[in-house]
């Protein structure tokens, strides 16, 4: 009975892996067929040599970096303050952080365009609006990751201990709280990165160079290069996950027994 259960478990695992990896392998193999008759990395070379790719990818990198910085600066103090001073507001704040899941991005985008395309706030062309919009979209991931990180440490006692030793709010935040939730912040940061890099609607309608609109354009005109781009974006995501788990290993052990 036991061995039959084990076989079934393995069957399900293999089925799941096939479901996930087969399309990926197929896409990868397909991307190698750019040169007629034999396998090559021609599609990848074409992508990397395309100035539009460089522009789109660099654009996404910049937006993602700014979104992460903005998100950390906004959500770490907020989550810290809510946990420390207004714990009763946590439910309301959690609800607010979920709003981007409920409102479709297209609706959100048109709302932004309508609101900010005429005076007194004519900022529809400003990169700041795009970064602010990305911060809102990535809020559920970033805020929740930080909140989970804060839940793992005794925020109140650590804060009070630091205060009794003479520390001000800046010292507490930058030398006590942030170092102890750095893994959570990294989790949120990489999730935000993935969201921003893969986001199409905002960049397209706010007319800013980005990776996803470039990929969309490529799909309409080329055959093998979009497949190469899909593999590149997967590799990028996995690299991010690898970095998270690598950095996360040391951090968990420290926080785990320290309070």
């Amino acid at each position, binding site marked *: 009975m036991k061995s039959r259960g084990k076989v079934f478990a393995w069957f399900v695992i293999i089925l799941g892996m096939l479901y996930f990896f087969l399309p990926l392998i197929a896409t990868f193999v397909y991307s190698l067929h750019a040169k007629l008759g034999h396998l090559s990395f021609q599609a990848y070379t074409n992508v990397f040599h395309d100035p539009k790719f460089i522009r789109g990818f660099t654009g996404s990198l910049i937006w993602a970096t700014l979104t992460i910085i903005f998100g950390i600066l906004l959500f770490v103090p907020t989550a810290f303050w809510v946990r420390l001073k207004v714990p009763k507001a946590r439910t309301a704040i959690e609800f607010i952080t979920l709003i981007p899941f409920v409102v479709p991005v297209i609706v959100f985008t048109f709302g932004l365009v309508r609101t900010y395309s005429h005076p007194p706030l004519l900022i529809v062309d400003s990169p700041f609006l795009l970064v602010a919009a990305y911060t809102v979209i990535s809020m559920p991931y970033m805020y929740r990751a930080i909140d989970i990180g804060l839940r793992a440490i005794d925020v109140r006692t650590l804060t009070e201990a630091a*205060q009794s030793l003479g520390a001000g709010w800046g010292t507490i935040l930058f030398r006590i709280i942030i170092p102890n939730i750095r893994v959570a912040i990294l989790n949120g940061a990489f999730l935000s990165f993935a969201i921003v890099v893969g986001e199409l609607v905002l960049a397209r309608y706010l007319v800013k160079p980005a990776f996803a609109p470039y990929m969309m354009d490529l799909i309409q005109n080329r055959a093998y290069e979009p497949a190469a781009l899909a593999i590149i974006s997967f590799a990028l995501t996995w690299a991010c996950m690898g970095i998270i788990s690598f950095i996360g290993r040391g951090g968990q052990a420290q926080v785990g*027994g320290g*309070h």
Partner: protein
Amino acid sequence: MTHLSLNNISKQFSTNKVVQDFNLDVRKGEFVSFLGPSGCGKTTTLRMIAGFEIPTTGNVILDDEDITEKAPNQRNVGMVFQAYALFPNMTVAQNIGFGLKVRREKKEFIQTRITEMLALIHLEQKGDSYPYQLSGGQQQRVALARALAIHPQVLLLDEPLSALDAKIRVSLRAEIRAIQRKLGITAIYVTHDQEEALSISDRIVVMYEGKIEQVGSPFEIYNFPTTAFVAGFVGTLNTTAAEVVDPATHLLQIDGVQLQAAEGLDGMLKGDKITIAIRPERFNFVSQERKANILDCTIENITFLGSVVRIQVLVGSNRFYMDTFNNPFLELPKIGDKDQVTCSREAVLVLRQ
């Protein structure tokens, strides 16, 4: 000379009065414990000294300076928490040096102070360890060193031993007391453990429902409780209702049996109803020469508690505990035996309601 003064302190959270009319003067170098059950306001009072709570009324004076409204990081007060509260991202040495670094002390001074503190808590080899690599007792010693490193005017300890096992608790409380004596620092210690408070303190403040019930030395608190709450909370106590027979001779009766107290009936009248208390260890079996305070009893139960044997006796309709040292060469009575117990006049405590 008064070092720390709490004057008419009260604290109210919405309609809930957590601390009321709290007055206390603490001398320099004194070790004072706040003792009481959960929710009696002892931690809130400590937090008002630390600056984490602002009193609703009253003021906190430290070294002649009113610090009532000062932020916690502006007061020179060291605090040790129940949950250790060591910074997980820092080593033991970095934890100890944190307060000095915040104060922008010189590197050499910080290093010297860290070495001194590590020697004080006997953890010289653990400077480079992280908190998670230490036992609970070691972590609390580091927390103590960290609080002392900044040369605080007052050391506050909020149930620092509650999270530790019994054996370490006993050894660490002795260590805390020894360090406090050595440094001559004023310390306020919050606990709900009466044995801890009795063993460690110069003075104990017994609190109940936000108010001070009694302030006194451990000896006074244990032997001469002035209220029914203190008598019941500190140690085991037999309490019973009694009636005043003759206030002049301090004579009273319980269930028709007459008892004489040494004091406490001043201003009372014959027939007044009162509550009296007698510690279990103040009862003895009657010897030949004893004439007064003799109570006929029946042995109801005998419990062996190690160094002490607790005997439950029935006197009229009252059940009393009697403690006697465990002596393996002395024969104990048997359950159901009729006997007589007695106590001195001084053992009969008349309690204030």
